[in-house]
């Protein structure tokens, strides 16, 4: 039994990589993940990844932001210390609009982005879990877990057939740890 943990198919062209995914899927080989230097459209449909639900999070945070600031202004301007400005009503909704608008956007942006970072485990100082250092440069990488997916030569051949420029049999999952 070899010590290979992950088999990486390295492609220099996104179309070849798509072919590689097809080849593996036709042979019922599960793909661990795909690493690309840029977003490749159509890949999520192929891999059966559902649409992101971040939009719902964004909407909820937006509602929260609008409610928070509207309540704050209402409390301060109408309830706690109503001011008599020429006898005009203190609950002047048009004046609330810019603040409500700004905080709706502020909460949407930060709430959604922080949700994205949390869901994807991105935060400052996180050790990058990189399988191949060129995946952020010019290599489109398909990673297949070696465990259970045997024989490894077949996987290598499937990737090569699709046009992989290199197939790596890595004994470590991540190469980025020092």
């Amino acid at each position: 039994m070899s010590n290979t943990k992950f088999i990486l198919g390295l492609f220099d062209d996104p179309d070849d990589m798509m072919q590689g995914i097809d080849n593996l899927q036709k042979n019922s080989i599960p793909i661990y993940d795909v690493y690309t230097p840029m977003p490749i459209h159509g890949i999520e449909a192929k891999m059966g990844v559902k649409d992101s639900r971040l939009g719902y999070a964004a909407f909820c945070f937006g509602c929260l932001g609008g409610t928070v600031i509207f309540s704050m202004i209402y409390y301060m301007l109408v309830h706690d210390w109503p001011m008599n400005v020429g006898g005009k009503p203190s609950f002047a909704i048009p004046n609330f609009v810019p603040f409500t608008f700004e905080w709706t956007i502020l909460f949407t942006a930060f709430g959604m982005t922080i949700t994205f970072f949390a869901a994807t485990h991105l935060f400052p100082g996180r050790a990058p879990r990189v399988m191949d250092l060129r995946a952020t440069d010019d290599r489109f990488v398909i990673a297949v877990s070696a465990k259970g997916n045997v024989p490894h030569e077949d996987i290598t051949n499937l990737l090569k057939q699709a046009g992989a420029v290199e197939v790596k049999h890595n004994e470590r999952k991540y190469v980025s740890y020092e």
Partner: protein
Amino acid sequence: MASHNESIIREPLMTGKDITYAQITNDILLPVENKPNKAWWIGFTVASLGSLLWVVAISYTFWFGLGAWGLNKTIGWAWDITGFVWWVGIGHAGTLISAVLLLFRQNWRNSINRSAEAMTIFAVICAATYIVAHMGRPWLAYFTLPLPNQYGSLWVNWNSALMMDVFAISTYFSVSLLFWYTGLLPDIAAIRDRATGLRRRIYSIMSFGWTGSLKTWQRFETVSLILAGIATPLVLSVHTIVSFDFATSLVPGWHTTIFPPYFVAGAIFSGFAMVQTLLLVTRKVLGLENYITMFHIESMNKIILLTGSIVGVAYLTEFFIAWYSGSEYEQYTFLNRFIGPYWWAGCMMYGCNVIMTQVMWFKKVRTNIALSWGFSIIVNIGMWFERFVIIVTSLHRDYIPSSWAMFYPTWVDVSVFIGSIGIFFTMFLLFIRVLPSVAIAEVKLLLKSSSEQAKKKLIDEGHLEPAEVQYYKESLTKYDSVDMADYEKV
């Protein structure tokens, strides 16, 4: 991808022969991974001296108070607010490029959005320095926040446009920063994976552990799109609210309902001029001619022409309404812009912004780099004078002739302004040294669809309408980075 090629009649967004994904990374990271050249050091030295001037002038202001400026009892707002509005306006182009053009799927934004967004952030920082500076007592800046206090609590005045400005500018700055930094993550990861030692460690922390996995990209794209969707109304709201600072007052020349759209158009106009000023130099110095092409330059010039014309229509409307209103004070204010003591400022405003930009109708002007750069500077100057005319010229002769006055800037006024330009350029020059000035991942998206080499390949393969190919070849002649000899035989 290869299955859907872009139409041949569209101009390429990237030029150059035999460009690979690796070469894109190399080209863009060249200034980041190497020692800066002489041009950078000269620029950085000059900019740093400017920043130093700002530190001196602003310290002097805080020590001696706002009396150090040339303000008087008639003109209580002058260069400070002029500078503030000028810088905020400049910032708008970055958001327009990154957000509005993303929503409209304008792929040419991919090569210029990064530096334009950086410019937004630095311009808003410069604008923020004016807000803090004109408070006079910056240690009381927290008075603008709705904090509980021992005076009642006496809350901030939510009815004031200035309060709206606090919220608009702070939201705008923080959301722009977030948008910019999120977009930077994949590119910082690219630097990290090529670096060694301490550099790798630093960029590793900054990259948040980005890997470029499938789900990361999918979520990243969702986040970018939604951020663009909310940044678009945000950027429109910011200058609208800046214009409220004036429009909600009763000063003739300020009290007009046209201000919000007029300010927004002016902001985009001046912002694109500043992007043009910066990018034409950056492209040359960093050798990015293949990524920031003549198509980009011409497109930006077209936007400058459009927004400049909108500003021109707004100016005409102002004059018409001043006459039509029948209000003596309003009429005098607008007449005073030409026949008053500040006639020269009025001429700078109308001349630079409206008359000069109309030559952009000519394609020869739009595709001439030296002229484009010159016009971008003219627009920057013109837009500064626009704010000066609106603010100072409207204030200096209002209702009572006995309180009419002139504004004379002191050396502190001038130094704060020149210094803020120094700060802006210091930050921009540091940015192009440590972070990629072009969005690497987004430019890579163009390689197989919109690049010159992809289109050349299509032509070489045949199967295309000869008339369309001819049209395409003619459109290439304007590019300074395309060698037309390659197209003679095909």
